[in-house]
Each structure stands twice: as C-alpha cells, then as structure tokens.
C-alpha cells in the first residue's frame, strides 16, 4: 500500500474540525511526554523509531484499521522510514511533512471579526506551540502584534490581502518564543513598539509603548490603545482595539493566567499581576473580547479554531480571576509553577538583540510547549 505526506496545515484543519486521526509518534518517550500534537479526536501511540528498526510486525495489532494514520517524528526522516515499513506491511499511512519542527512553526490564520469601517482583525494560531499573534487591518494598512519568528507568514498574508504593515507591537519581552517584530519592522519600514520597562537592555532602536499611547491604523482610524498591565513582566502592556477587543498578552488567558517568574522576579511581580487582573481589568467593559497571546490546552479553541472569549465570561469562569484571598493567589502563581520554557533565558536575550543565534539554533531553542501560564 502507499504512504503519503500530510502537511502541518492539513493537520491544523483536522485539529480545528475535530476530525479523527491516529498518530503514531516515533520520537523517544521523553520528547513525546514533553510535547506532542494535540487534537480532541486524536488517538496516540508512542513507539520510538529505534524500537522498530527490526520491523513493525509487533505493533500492527495496535494500529486501527478504520482511521487515518499519521506517523510523526522530530524532523521527518524517521517517520518516512516507519511509514514505508507500515506501507510494506499493507497499511495506508501518512507521515508529517517536516515533522514536529514544521508543526511547531505552522501558523494558521483565523479571521476573528470585523471592526468599524470595514477593518478586520486576524489571529494567527500557532497550534504546535500555543502562541497567538495578531494582525489588525484597516484601509490598506496593518499592525502586527506579538509576531513569531516565522515572519514570512505575516508578510505573505499582508501581500495576499493587499495591505502595508505600518506598525509592529509586542505586548512584552517574550521568554517562550523568539519575536519576529524587529525583523518585520526592518523589512517593511514599520515602527516597532515595545514597552520601555521590558526593553531596558535591548540593543536596537524602538518606539516606547506607554499607557495612553494611541496607534492609528489606516486613515479611518482604528485605534490601538495601550494599557499598562504589569505582572507577567514588569512592562507587560495590553491593547484595546477599536473599543471591542482586549489583547491581553501573557497576562490573562482563556483558562489560566500569566506566570510572573520568567524574568526571575516572581515575588516582586505577584502584586502587580493581581492589581492588573483584579483591579485594572475589572474597570474595563465586560463586553470586550479577550484575545490572549497563548493558549495552553486545545479545549481553549473555539469552533472556528480561534481563541477568544468575553472578558465578562472570564471573570465568571477563569479560576485565576476568582481567588479572593491574596495569600492563596500568591501560592498559585509562585508555588508549584510548571517547568520553565525551554531555553527561556537565551530566548529573552535574543529578543533583546544581545545574541543572534542562526535559524537552526532558534528553532531548537523554541522546541517544546510554551509554559507561560499557571492554572
């Protein structure tokens, strides 16, 4: 029987459409346990490729006959080998093109909605890593917020819809992924905005993003209002777009809240985080739709693949917004924290411009889940 490739984009559609898929992940167990493709109707079997070098006969009875089968490895090579063996044993199988590397880098653009005067906002869902970035489009111009390092995805998308990127913003100095903000700004001559309190050590020029700044996209004036909201980092800034959307960065997620420890100052920033979540955000309209910079689990995705929910609903449902006692809150965000993201110190230094790792190294630094939240 045959074996064919399946692209990360095709797997994304299956995640969003909740399609059935059987994934045979042939990476070693620790890599699989650390991080894998997630889908609501996906079934998994993890057998390292090196246990299959002598043949796949022993695992054939563990592979269902009535489902699509996808073999996955780190970079593709081993999954091709195993897919070929399975096809020789009579199965129809796919392998993931580019492996987990491609999965980690794939961005799925989802249209979130319309703004006044025909403007639009898009969310770029990085399913493999749980990162979310945004493009606000108005009258031929675009702003990009919290971009990943896969800058071609944004540049190509902007070309396709015929808009010019004029502003690039990061809500904070990221520790889990390498920002593409500076490079997009260089390529497009756009302004690059960063919160100055997070940018104290950066080695390049930027526009200081401060509370009260209003950045206008297109001449029909879609406003992005900066709202200082420290807690995940000291400079963390949220944006209110067109009085309708709250881009909450890594402060507030759908089912969790930001962790305050990635710059090494958990104790100092707990109070800021609480102040932002329990006071500053409380003063905003409950009708705002929260658009965070991450999701943690696949259940946070809406039917259309977007990650978005009304602020009022989050105040009602998100555990992190409903802890009355400050001591309990402190315990949640400083005790029992999940492991820190892979290479997070090096990632911060890269985002400050202090080090410039090559593409291969950047890819390696970003391997694994994002781990920016606490639940």
């Amino acid at each position: 029987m045959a074996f064919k490739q399946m692209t990360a984009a095709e797997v994304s559609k299956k995640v969003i459409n909740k399609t059935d898929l059987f994934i045979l992940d042939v990476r070693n167990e620790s890599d699989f346990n650390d991080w894998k493709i997630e889908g609501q109707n996906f079934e998994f079997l993890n057998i390292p490729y090196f246990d299959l070098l002598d043949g796949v006969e022993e695992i054939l009875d563990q592979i269902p006959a009535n489902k699509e089968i996808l073999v996955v490895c780190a970079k593709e090579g081993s999954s091709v080998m195993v897919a070929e063996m399975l096809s020789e044993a009579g199965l129809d199988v796919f392998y993931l093109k580019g492996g987990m590397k491609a999965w980690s880098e794939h961005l799925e653009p989802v249209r979130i909605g319309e703004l006044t005067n025909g403007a639009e906002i898009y969310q770029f869902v990085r399913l493999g890593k749980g990162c979310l970035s945004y493009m606000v489009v108005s009258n031929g111009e675009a702003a990009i917020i919290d971009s990943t390092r896969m800058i071609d995805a944004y540049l190509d998308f902007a070309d396709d819809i015929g808009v010019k990127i004029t502003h690039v913003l990061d809500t904070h100095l990221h520790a889990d992924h390498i920002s593409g903000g500076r490079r997009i700004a260089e390529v497009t001559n756009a302004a690059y905005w960063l919160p100055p309190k997070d940018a104290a050590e950066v080695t390049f020029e930027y526009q200081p993003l401060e509370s009260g700044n209003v950045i206008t996209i297109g001449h029909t004036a879609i406003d992005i209002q900066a709202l200082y909201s420290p807690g995940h980092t000291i400079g963390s800034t949220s944006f209110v777009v067109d009085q309708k959307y709250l881009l909450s960065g890594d402060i507030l997620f759908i089912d969790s809240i930001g962790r305050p420890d990635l710059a090494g100052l958990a104790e100092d920033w707990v109070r800021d985080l609480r102040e932002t979540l329990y006071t500053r955000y409380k003063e905003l309209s409950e009708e705002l739709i929260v658009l965070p910079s991450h999701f943690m689990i696949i259940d946070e995705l809406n039917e259309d693949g977007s990650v978005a929910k009304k602020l009022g609903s989050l105040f009602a449902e998100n555990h992190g917004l409903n802890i009355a006692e400050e001591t309990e809150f402190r315990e949640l965000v400083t005790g029992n924290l999940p492991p820190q993201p892979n290479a997070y110190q090096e990632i911060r230094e890269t985002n400050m411009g202090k080090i410039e790792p090559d593409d291969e190294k950047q890819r390696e630094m970003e391997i694994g889940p994002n781990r920016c939240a606490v639940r």
Partner: protein
Amino acid sequence: MIKTNSVLDAKGFACPMPIVKTKKAMNGLEAGEVLEVQATDKGSTADMKAWAESSGHQYLGTVEEGTTLKHYLRKASGEETEVKKHEKIISNEELLQVMEENRNMIILDVRESAEYAFNHIPGARTLPMGELEQRMGELDIESEIFVICRTGSRSDLAAQKLTGAGFEQVFNVVPGMSQWNGPSQKSVNE
C-alpha cells in the same frame, strides 16, 4: 582522548541514520566493548540515551567538539548476573569510610577508559581490565587495593588476578560505580 574499541562516523546524517548505523556497529562489537559515535544531528544525544536504555546497552556520555557530538556507548555484557568469587568484599559505604580515614591506599578503577572519563571517584587510578595483566607491575604490592567497576563483576575478576599475582590486601567494592553516591568527577568536558 578517550580510548574506544571502535569509532563510527555518522557525521552529516539526519535521524534515523545515526541510530541505524550505531545499532549495526554494535552488532560487530564484543560484549563490554566501547563504541564512539560521531554525529552532527543535535537530536542524536537524547535518542542515543533512550535507545541504549531500551536495548540494554550502556550510554556513557557525550562530548561536544565544535559541531561534532561524540557519543560513547558500551555494549551490553550481562555482567550483573555473574557470581562473585573473590572473598574480600567491601560495600560502597565502607569504601567511603576508608576514604575519609585518609589511609595510604589505591582505588583501582578497572572499567573501560570511556566509562572512567564520564564518572569516577576523585583520586581513583584507571586501569582497564583488558590491560591489567601487563600493567599490574605499576601497582605497589604492599598497598591496600580497592578494586571497583560498574557492578562488582569485572572488579571481582581483577581482584582474583591481583591475588593470584601475589597482592595480599585486595578488596572488591560491591556494587561499585552504578550505585556510587560519594564524591565523583569527570575528566571530559561535556
């Protein structure tokens, strides 16, 4: 320089080739022999470890030299199951006590040079089992000798040989480095 029985060049190969080639090379080695695998695939370190664990071989460690990763593996030997014959035995804990007394003595590590390189007791002398007979003369016959290996089996054999050659104060350290919690060091940069 770490001495090995064989060197495999898997540089420039992507996964799964480094492991495929390593598995093949291992088949050509005798039990207990050491293989150096040179690879450039970054993922090969984690996979070597996991593969060695699942196949019963011993992963000793990896040294990074520029862009080359040198992995060291020792072929499964089945030595854990052998019966020990040398009568003078001391435990790891007892050896630690002896070390604290600062007595004039020798800790003789008879494992392969690659095993020694990645983890050994500070001050221990390395004398791999295979070279013991010809280099025995380097040792002071009057001295107390504590022979150690990974599981107490090679050191059992070494202790018997030393006793046979006239050494009188020879102890086998059981179980040896596999369970060692005392001070240890490396002689390579990982």
